[in-house]
């Protein structure tokens, strides 16, 4: 009778041990399935996000440092000059007036002046043209034809001056013929350039590209450009650098 009781006690104890181990095992599996695995996946995702955030922070820090290192008054002056030389949109009155002033400075008679194709004068049309023209000549332009009468040296001087006067112009075609002794007649085609604002601007994550040394040289070249003061009638709607808000553009 005593032997039977002993075996029964041992069986109960071992059953309890098996049950406890089984319970722990099931608990481990369940906790792993419903807590540990999602947590591990969340860690992997958080790690990936953290790396992205770290990269973003590094870029933003670089951007803030670059922007803080720039002087607003100096930039305003530079942009003002750049906008005078390369306006935002077709500056028809400005171009005509400048050509006339350069001709008068060289004591040349402007016989005729025409713009074969003006098109729309808003920056919207300019933007459409930019993409087309980029492959051909990098900058959108407007063609002006004019006939000048005067001594040849003065006409040649006119070519030189036109290309170093604001707004940016380039003689794209010319014909000089002798009219009288010492007087020539010249038919000139001048292209005057403009450039609309970039379409993508003001994104927070967008890096600020610094001006290269080559571009600094270009700016120094711009500083030597002759700029004629505009009369009230020639003022266009182009904003100055001080009024330029590209984020709200």
């Amino acid at each position: 009778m005593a032997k039977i009781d002993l075996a029964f006690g041992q069986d109960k104890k071992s059953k309890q041990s098996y049950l406890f181990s089984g319970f722990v095992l099931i608990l481990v599996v369940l906790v792993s399935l419903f807590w540990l695995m999602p947590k591990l996946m969340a860690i992997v995702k958080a790690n990936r996000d953290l790396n992205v955030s770290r990269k973003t922070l590094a870029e933003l820090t670089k951007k803030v440092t670059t922007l803080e290192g720039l002087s607003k008054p100096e930039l305003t002056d530079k942009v003002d000059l750049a906008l005078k030389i390369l306006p935002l949109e077709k500056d028809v009155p400005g171009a005509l007036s400048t050509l006339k002033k350069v001709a008068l400075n060289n004591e040349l008679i402007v016989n005729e002046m025409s713009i074969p194709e003006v098109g729309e004068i808003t920056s919207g049309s300019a933007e459409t043209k930019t993409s087309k023209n980029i492959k051909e000549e990098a900058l959108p332009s407007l063609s002006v034809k004019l006939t000048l009468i005067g001594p040849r040296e003065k006409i040649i001087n006119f070519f030189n001056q036109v290309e170093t006067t604001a707004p940016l112009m380039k003689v794209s075609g010319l014909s000089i013929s002798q009219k009288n002794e010492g007087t020539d007649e010249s038919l000139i085609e001048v292209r005057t350039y403009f450039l609309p604002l970039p379409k993508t601007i003001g994104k927070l994550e967008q890096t600020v590209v610094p001006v290269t040394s080559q571009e600094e040289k270009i700016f120094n070249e711009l500083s030597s450009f002759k700029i004629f003061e505009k009369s009230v009638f020639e003022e266009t709607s182009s904003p100055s650098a001080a009024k330029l808000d590209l984020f709200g553009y």
Partner: protein
Amino acid sequence: MSGEIDFLKGQQVGGALKTKFLHSLKVGTLVLILAYCLVSAAVFSYWLFLSNQTNKINNEIAVKKTKITALKDVESLQVVLKQRLSSLDKFFSSKKGAGNFNNLLAFINQTATGINIKELKIAEDKMNFTGLAPNMMILENFLNDLKSNESSSLFSKITLSSIDRQEDGSYLFSVLLEIKK
């Protein structure tokens, strides 16, 4: 006699093994619980650390974004300046080629000494030149100058289109010059 025969011996040996196995199972289970708790704690701590780091970095990003927004005027100006200067850089480098009108005119002015330039046309990559040379020697000098090294850097092909002797002994000639790109 009854003391020599032990009927429980087999059961005792089996019981000892079972007890040992149960003991190992118990210890193993406890070790598993402990190890699992440690792993879970480590995972949880690392997750907390990552969350803190993410929050910290996100706060820093927010601060930087505020600073950038405050500096938007400067950024606008910089973007516009950069856009204009890079476009002008391309423009000026394309202008510095052989086809620059000022270079061509300077060359013609320099070489056409003594020649009366009647007509000069430059369009795209061609230049038409009509002149009046008072005598053959001046015309020869001019044509020789056109064959010089400086000329070959500006023009790819030079063709003497026509030459007419005038009544007064002067020569009216026409030259077609193909401009190098």
